């Protein structure tokens, strides 16, 4: 069996990649995908710990996190589409009416 720390390392890497994506990329959709990556690293951590501790709560938590991710897609895409209709761009550097 692959030891649990390996899973945790992978999940930390996934989380870091997602965080870097949020900070570096400027397309709202790509940022959104990076956030989904972070949520998946959360899932991996929960499952790995649930396995290590032989406890069920971690696996249950994963289902809730999946639901959270799905609902965020619904609301997030609706908002992104609204802004795309108004300006024909989803680049967040162009979305700059509010500043100062």
């Amino acid at each position: 069996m692959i030891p649990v720390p390996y899973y945790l390392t992978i999940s930390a890497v996934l989380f870091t990649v997602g965080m870097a994506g949020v900070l570096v990329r400027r397309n709202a959709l790509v940022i959104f995908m990076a956030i989904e990556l972070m949520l998946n690293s959360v899932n991996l951590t929960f499952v790995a710990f649930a396995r290590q501790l032989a406890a069920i709560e971690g696996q249950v938590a994963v289902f809730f996190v999946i639901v959270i991710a799905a609902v965020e897609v619904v609301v997030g895409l609706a908002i992104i589409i609204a802004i795309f209709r108004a300006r024909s761009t989803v680049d967040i550097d162009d979305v700059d009416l509010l500043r100062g």
Partner: protein
Amino acid sequence: MSASDLWSIVPELWLAGLAIFLLLVDLLTARKSLVGVVAVMGLLLSIIPIGSLLTQGARTVIFGSYAVDGFAVFFKILTVIATALVVLAAIDWLPGRSQYEGEFYALLVFTALGLVLMAASTDIILLALSIEFVSLTSYVLAGYLKGDVKSNEAGVKYFLYGAAASAVMLFGFSILYGLTGSTNLYEIARRVANAPLPALYLSIALMLSGFGFKISMVPFHQWTPDVYEGAPTPVAAYLSVASKAAGFAALVRMLMVVVDPGRLNWILLIAVLSAVSMTLGNLLALPQRNIKRMLAYSSISHAGFLLIGVAAFRGDFGTPGLLIYLLGYMFTQLGAFFVAALIGQQLGTDDIPDYAGLSRRAPVSALLMAVFMLSLTGFPPTSVFIGKFYVLAGAIDNGLLWLAIVGVVNSVISLYYYAGVIRAMYVMPAASTVPLREPAALQVALGIAGLGTLLIGLYPQPIIDLARSAVLLLRI
């Protein structure tokens, strides 16, 4: 789980039922203001089941995942009052801006349900779900005016920032779960003593990003001015008050229940974040011309002030002070935003120089706005003064004298930009002398906010007693 558990969550069930009922009413009537009136009445009626919880002892229900204690009840009361006032203000503000009026009120009540859940969760899964619940409805509310590009922009900024912050927070939760093997806060508190310290620091720091986002604490504050400026004004008012209060409730419960400050020194961490939030928020508020942006930066600064109450949690002043501050700040900040909503609606502007001559054009609103500005500065006899007094006393009581000094200095700085609004209203010559129309529901909401601000300032004893008892019940 037993049937008596269900009796303990009647307020939550009532709010859920009310929100669904509002959607039905919206389907059946063409007069959308009726939906708002029903929402206000339903919210006021929910005070009855909430009040009945006051006499019961502190306990957890539903497999230990949900707290029924004075602390939770306090935040239920605060949330319900704030929601009712915001709905009242929106009844006059929303028509003509969006064709989806009924859904707006229903969404506000759904958000209230999420906030109530957030303040009472004692299980990290439920806590994560309720924070997410509040976030999702808030994203929609911030971007509610689909035809308004600024509102769109506020929605997308709030969404991207909030989703990233809650993903970071969830990662912190997953590490906390791994360290302790439980999702229940009280169980975690028992087991956390054996957890390795660096990992515990990491998970607390990650979780702070989620709570910090909700309370708009530096360094998670960047969204605040943009969202407040772009979002519909009643929504900005709601976010700055109710969402912030529930964020503080979750933060306080998490820190006090789970983490022993003797093992992990979060007091210093919170104290430093508090000082930075107060100072940065104030300095950025100084040059603002837009009233909503100014209130946004001032709300960052007030988040710093409220954090003093979190850091100074020992003794009789800190945590009760936090609760008194939150309640007083709720009335004052809502009132200030309602005046901004009135001016935004009647004059179509949010710029402070355009408030010139308001004392003659809308004398009552101008007078109330002056009271709110003085209250936000912390002048007696107003509600925020009592809150500031208590948290500063708490800081001194807890040996955080330097933090109290930073707080006092910041109060003095903040007088500059709050007084700027009063100066515009009373000293600057008016561009026109035509009296402004003051719509009825907005005026009522404004009046209640003003009354709350002054009453808590003049006769704070009942609120102090309520806050004291709420804190006593917190630790089960």
